[in-house]
């Protein structure tokens, strides 16, 4: 593996510093929400994680299109990195949502359009990894992966828009809430600071993780090629 570039080292350290500051802002700076209490603080990282998850899936669909046009394996590596990072952050989003819901909705899970579409989205991308595991030929795997990533992306806007187009109890952060939404609140200036800082922090951290995952993908590709050379 090539040595870690300076820019990536900077990004790594920046991520650590930003995560520390974001943790301080969410845990101590932002006021305690009057009705929900301390569990509302999870919201800042919950939304930020969902945002990074969607960025990862968006990167995967872009890489899928690029792979189909250029047939260059680097796009397959980038796409896989996008989906892996997207899955990790979407998982954080879903689980923290359930933890928040327990005291606020009095249940860990309900068949709400947002919860269902977000879980379906997660499962769609888990299936992407399973599909890849089942294909040995690297080019075939990349082609199938690219097509799947493009088709699977339908689940992303569906999940994002679900709370805006269907009746739901899930709060909407930006835009108007459904009258049936439970757990809504008005953000004060300090809450907005914590919220937008968390979004920025998770974006930087997500980019750093993507970069690391792409480097591992390149190394994996190199190992596979070397194995093929030795076997032939």
């Amino acid at each position, binding site marked *: *593996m090539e040595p870690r570039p300076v820019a990536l080292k900077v990004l790594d350290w920046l991520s650590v510093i930003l995560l520390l500051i974001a943790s301080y802002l969410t845990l101590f700076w932002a006021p305690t929400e009057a009705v*929900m*209490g301390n569990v509302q603080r999870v919201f800042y990282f919950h939304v930020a994680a969902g945002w990074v998850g969607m960025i990862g899936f968006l990167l995967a669909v872009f890489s899928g299109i690029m792979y189909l046009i250029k047939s260059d394996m680097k796009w397959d590596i980038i796409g896989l990195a996008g989906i892996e990072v997207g899955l990790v952050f979407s998982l*954080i989003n879903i689980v*923290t949502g359930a*933890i928040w819901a327990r005291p606020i909705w009095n249940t860990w899970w309900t068949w709400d359009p947002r919860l269902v579409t977000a879980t379906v989205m997660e499962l769609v991308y888990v299936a992407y990894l399973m599909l890849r595991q089942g294909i040995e030929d690297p080019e075939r795997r990349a082609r199938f992966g690219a097509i799947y990533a493009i088709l699977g992306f339908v689940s992303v806007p569906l999940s994002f828009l679900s709370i805006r187009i269907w009746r739901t109890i899930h709060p909407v952060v930006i835009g108007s809430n459904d009258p049936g939404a439970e757990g809504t609140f008005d953000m004060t200036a300090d809450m907005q600071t914590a919220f937008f800082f968390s979004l920025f922090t998770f974006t930087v951290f997500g980019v750093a*993780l993507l970069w690391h*995952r792409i480097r*591992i993908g390149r*190394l994996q590709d190199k190992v596979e090629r070397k194995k093929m050379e030795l076997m032939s």
Partner: protein
Amino acid sequence: MAETTNYMILGFAVIFVTMGVHLWSLYNRAGRLKKDLAMLEEMEEE
């Protein structure tokens, strides 16, 4: 105001543990691949 501190702690624990596991996984995979590559290069030289 509802007393929900335990749920907050659980939420942050899930966030940091999940991130930690992913970071460990990246580190572990990179190390294993480096070893594999070194071994393959050694075999190639022989």
